[in-house]
């Protein structure tokens, strides 16, 4: 599923009476839940591959609800800080530099412009350069270099200009 499509779905949930939507297609599943009891309108996004058993069960218990609430609070913090998440568009390996010897594309504290390359995600010798979609300051890189990343995983947080 493309990032633009995910954004469209988030917008749909935000602006409609829908409180929850879950879609599965071609090996990926996305679930978007709007927490009505909270004082903000930011929906919670949970994106994970269909085969990830920890999230795939449709049954909801108290623990899951707590987790959802925790996620909601985290998202709210992010929303209140006005940070933009950059998420991985594919499963693969996250590289902060074009080669092991080369300097990182970006570091925490760097200012980036729209279109600037942030990292490479490699899967099966396909090198996918991930570019900034907003200009701003890199405030968090929650993934280690050369680590596996999942579809939809946050790989950068940017404080927009």
């Amino acid at each position, binding site marked *: 599923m493309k990032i633009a499509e995910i954004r469209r779905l988030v917008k749909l949930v935000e602006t409609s009476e829908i409180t929850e939507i879950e879609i599965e297609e071609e090996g990926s599943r996305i679930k978007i839940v709007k927490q009505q009891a909270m004082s903000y309108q930011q929906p919670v996004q949970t994106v994970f591959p269909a085969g990830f058993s920890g999230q795939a069960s449709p049954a909801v218990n108290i623990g899951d609800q707590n987790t959802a609430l925790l996620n909601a609070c985290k998202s709210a913090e992010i929303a209140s800080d006005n940070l933009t998440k950059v998420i991985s568009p594919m499963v693969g390996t996250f590289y902060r530099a074009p080669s092991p010897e080369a300097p990182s594309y970006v570091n925490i504290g760097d200012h980036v412009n729209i279109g600037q390359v942030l990292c490479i995600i490699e*899967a*099966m010798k396909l090198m996918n350069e991930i570019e900034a979609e907003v200009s701003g300051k890199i405030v968090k890189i929650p993934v280690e270099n050369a680590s596996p990343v999942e579809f939809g995983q946050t790989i950068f947080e940017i404080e927009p200009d």
Partner: protein
Amino acid sequence: MTTTDIDFTFCGSTLIGRSIRSLPVVVSTNNLLKAEALEGIAAEGAVVVTDYQTAGRGRLERQWESPPGKSLLFSLLLFPGDSAGKLQLMGLMCSLGVLGGLTEYSQMTNENRGIPIDKISLKWPNDLMVEKRKLCGILSDAGVDKKGRHFIVVGIGININQTFADFPGNIKNIATSLQLISGKTQYRGLILKSILRRLEKYYQRLKQEGFDWIAAEWLDRSGLLGKKLEISDNNGKIHGICTGLQNDGAMRLSLTDGTNKTIYSGDVI
């Protein structure tokens, strides 16, 4: 440095290779075509072929060593559309295309090419090997152009007329060429055309049927199902038995400790 054995006349395809540019030297055919794609100045199916790359590269920026004029080095630009996380299958498709093109070339009846096609095997995800020596490597770059179109530049390097003396010391024992396995000088231009024609057929099928046939066809041709494999990734080496490929091309392994693992990146040793 010469390109005399590459004939750049029309190769018979309507898309892939309808525009073939030959450059004696480039930094990297992938870098050139990707830059043009980002700017929106290269058409789908464009092919750039060169005699020598000053910075040809493989996975993790490993250098692709190629004496001038001995290899077939080219890149092609495609716009396969929204691939929903399956764009990496293009590399597998192209390895099938190279193998199919080499097969067609080897069977041209005007001359016995002497190429033992049955000795050429596929190595996950998209290398061609002959008895554990590398014959062909493929590396792809993905991007989005100014119009928001998803594109892929597939870079293909095939060792054609190298002798062992042409390979640097560090790869002498892990590389081979068509000349080495056939004992004959081969024709890069004819090989290029055969491969481009085969790639066009595969690409047309992809446009009609989508991506889902690629992994199954690749697995069938590779003969890897049920084979013991050793895969090196950033966390070390993994041993297991290949239990298949996912629809997105990822390798499924049954590990020696009884667990299963899905591999998206790594080198099969």
